[in-house]
C-alpha cells in the first residue's frame, strides 16, 4: 500500500502478472498531503513510452513530471487538470495495447486535509478583526468576489454572542510589574492566606505621633518590631520541611512608586529608636519614589507593613510578601462611635488587617500577635525607649 520511495512509481496492479499500471499522486515531500494536476501531456488512448512524461503535478511549491513507468496505452485518466488529488490517489491507468481496462475500485475520495485558503479581506477588515480577536474564516464577505470588508466584520462582532472587548493598548509585562506579578502569584498559589482584622483606638498613638513629630507608619513599624520580639513565629519563613525563625527583625514598607510597588526594608527595626526609624523610612521612601533603591535596600525583609489608609481604605486582604510568614495591612483612621464604659464615645479608629501563612502559624497565635500590636499602639509610650 505504501509508496515509500520519493520517486513516483506506478505500482503493479496485479501482483505477479505485470499488466495494467496505476499512476498515482506521488509524495514529493514529507509534509505533502495533496497535489494537483497541472496538465496532461498525453490524452486518453495515446501510446506512451517508458520514461516519457505523461502528467505534470503541482505540490505546495514545486511542479513535477510523472513519467510512464512502463510502455503502453494511457487507457484512462481519473483526475482532470486542476483536480486536487491526495497522495497515492489514482491519476491514470496504463495498459498493454490490447488489454482492456481492468475493473478498478476508484478510490477517488475527496482529500480530507484542510486546505488553508487565503481569505479575501480588505486591510481595514483585517485590522478590525485583529483588534477584536475575530477569526476571518467565520465571517461572510459582501465585497467583490466575496471579499470581507470592514462592515462585514463590524456586523459579525455585533451579532456574535461571544463578544470580545476591543483592545485599546497592549502593555508588555516587564520590570517591576513582571516581578510583582510573579511574586504575588507565587505567594497566593503556595501560601494559604488567612486575614485577621482588628480595630485599634489610635487616640494615644495620635498624641504620641504629635509629641515626637513622626508618622503613623513610623510608629506602626516600631510597634510591629516590638510585637515580633514577643511573637517570633510571625517573623519566620517556610523552607521545605523547615520553618526557619529569623533572628533579625527587618521590616519592609510597601511603597507605591511610578514604576510600581516596591518594598524597601528597614533592617533591625527592633533595635532602632523611633527617630532613627523615622529618618530611615523617610530616606528609603524618597529613594524608592526616585527609583534609586539599591538591591540591599529591598532585600532581607522578614515582615512587611503595607498602608492603604491614605487612599481611604479601611480593611483589605494583603498578599504575603514571599517568603515571609505574614504581612500587616494598615487602614485609614476613621472617627467612629465606640462604646466605652456604657457610653458612646467618638474615637479615631484604625483597622489592621493581618494576613498570615496558615502553614506556618495558626489563627490563635496570629490573633495574639495582632492583639499585641493593638495593645502597644493603644499604650505607645513603651515605644519611647
Amino acid at each position, binding site marked *: 500500500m505504501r509508496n515509500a520511495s520519493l520517486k513516483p512509481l506506478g505500482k503493479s496492479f496485479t501482483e505477479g502478472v505485470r499488466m495494467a499500471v496505476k499512476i498515482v499522486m506521488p509524495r514529493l515531500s514529507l509534509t505533502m498531503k495533496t497535489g494537483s494536476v497541472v496538465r496532461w501531456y498525453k490524452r486518453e488512448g495515446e501510446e506512451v513510452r517508458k520514461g516519457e512524461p505523461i502528467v505534470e503535478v503541482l505540490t505546495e511549491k514545486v511542479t513535477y513530471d510523472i513519467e510512464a513507468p512502463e510502455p503502453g496505452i494511457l487507457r484512462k485518466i481519473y483526475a482532470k487538470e486542476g483536480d486536487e488529488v491526495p497522495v497515492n490517489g489514482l491519476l491514470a491507468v496504463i495498459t498493454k495495447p490490447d488489454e482492456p481496462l481492468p475493473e478498478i475500485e476508484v478510490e477517488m475520495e475527496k482529500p480530507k486535509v484542510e486546505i488553508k485558503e487565503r481569505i479575501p479581506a480588505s486591510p*481595514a477588515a483585517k485590522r478590525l478583526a485583529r483588534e477584536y480577536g475575530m477569526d476571518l474564516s467565520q465571517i461572510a464577505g459582501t*465585497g467583490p468576489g466575496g471579499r470581507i470588508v*470592514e462592515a462585514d466584520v463590524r456586523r459579525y462582532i455585533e451579532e456574535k454572542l461571544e463578544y470580545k472587548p476591543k483592545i485599546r493598548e497592549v502593555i508588555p509585562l516587564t520590570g517591576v510589574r513582571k516581578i510583582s506579578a510573579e511574586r504575588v502569584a507565587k505567594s497566593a498559589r503556595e501560601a494559604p492566606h488567612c486575614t485577621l482584622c482588628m480595630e485599634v483606638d489610635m487616640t494615644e498613638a495620635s498624641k504620641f505621633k504629635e509629641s515626637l513629630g513622626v508618622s503613623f507608619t513610623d510608629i506602626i513599624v516600631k510597634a510591629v518590631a516590638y510585637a515580633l520580639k514577643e511573637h517570633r513565629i510571625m517573623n519566620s519563613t517556610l523552607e521545605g520541611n523547615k520553618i526557619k525563625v529569623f533572628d533579625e527583625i527587618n521590616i519592609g514598607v510597601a511603597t507605591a512608586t511610578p514604576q510600581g510597588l516596591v518594598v524597601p526594608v528597614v533592617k533591625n527595626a527592633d533595635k532602632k529608636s523611633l527617630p532613627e526609624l523615622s529618618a530611615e523610612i523617610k530616606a528609603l521612601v524618597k529613594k524608592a519614589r526616585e527609583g534609586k533603591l539599591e538591591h540591599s535596600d529591598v532585600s532581607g525583609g522578614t515582615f512587611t507593613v503595607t498602608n492603604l489608609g491614605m487612599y481611604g481604605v479601611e480593611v483589605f486582604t494583603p498578599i504575603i510578601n514571599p517568603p515571609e510568614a505574614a504581612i500587616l495591612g494598615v487602614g485609614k483612621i476613621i472617627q467612629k462611635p465606640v462604646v466605652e464604659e456604657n457610653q458612646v464615645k467618638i474615637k479615631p479608629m484604625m483597622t489592621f488587617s493581618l494576613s498570615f501563612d496558615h502553614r506556618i502559624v495558626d489563627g490563635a497565635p496570629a490573633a495574639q500577635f495582632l492583639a499585641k500590636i493593638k495593645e502597644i499602639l493603644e499604650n505607645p509610650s513603651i515605644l519611647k525607649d
Partner: protein
Amino acid sequence: MREISYRDALREALREEMQRDPTVFLLGEDIGRYWGGAFKVTKGLAEEFGDERVRDTPISESAIVGAAVGAAITGMRPVAEIMFGDLTTLAMDQIVNQAAKIRYMFGGQAKAPLVIRTPFGGGVNIAAHHSQCLEAWFMHVPGLQVVVPSTPYDAKGLLKTAIRNDNPVIFCEHKLLYPITGPVPDEEYTLPFGVADIKREGNDVTIVATLYMVHKALKAAEELEKDGISVEIVDPRTLVPLDKETIINSVKKTGRVVIVTEDCKTAGVSAEIAAVIAEKALDYLDAPIKRVANPDVPIPFSPPLESFVIPDEKRIIEAVREVVY
C-alpha cells in the same frame, strides 16, 4: 464676500506683494504692457509698476529662469512666468540643477527665492505641446516647492506665500481655472504651504484631487450624493510640502480613496499620494486605492479624443462606484 476670478486673484497677489516689497518683480514672455500675459494675469501691472518691474523677455525659457535665479541669489524676489507649463522643459537645467540646489550647496549662505508661475492642463484644444500636467516632475526634485491651487482664494493666498518663501516655488496654474470665480476677502491674507483643504466633507469615500480636477470631483460628488454616497474631497493645495496627515485622516475616516489628477497615471502625482496612503493607512483601507488620471498618451488635438483622455465627472463617478460597495 466679493467674488473674483482666479486670474484676478493671482493679479491681486502679485500687486500686493509688489507694493509691499520693492524686490519683487515679474519677468516673462509678453507679460508687459503690450499683451499682459498670455492668460492676462499680469494685465495692467506694467502700467502700475513700470517696465523695470514687469519685464518682457526674449523667447527663451532658459534665460527667463536663469535670470530669475541670478536675481534671486542677489537679493531680489523674482516671479517668472513660463507661458505654458510644457515649456518649463526648456528651463529644466536652470530649475532642477541650479534653482533647486543653490540653498543646499551653499549651506544656506545663498538662496534662490524665486517663483515660477506656469499654466498646466488641457481641455482647450491646444494639443500635445501645450496641454500637459508636469507637476510630478517637480515633486521629484528636492529643493523645489510645488503649489497647485484650485480656487481664487487658494491661488491668491498661496501666491503671496510663494513670493515670501525662501525656496524656489513652482506655482502650477491651470488654463481652465483662470475664468473661475470664487469668494476672496478684501482684507489681506496668506495661506500656509503644506496644509490641505477639505473642499467637501463626506463619510463614504475620499477623493484627493488637484487643480481643475477639484471642480470635476465636486460635480461628481453632487451626482453621487443623489445616490446616497457621501464624498469627502481633499485638495492638497501644495504637493511639496504635502499635507499627508489630512489625507491619511480622511482615508482613515472613509476607508476608501479615489485620487484624481490630470497628469499621466504612470509615476504621476496620484502614484505618490497612493503610495503615502498605502504606507501610512493600509490598515484602514476597505477597498483598493483607485486612481483616475490621464492614460499614458500625449494629449490629442482632436477635441473628442482630448475629452476622452482627460478625466471627467463620469470617470470619477465610475471609480467611486467601484470602491464603494
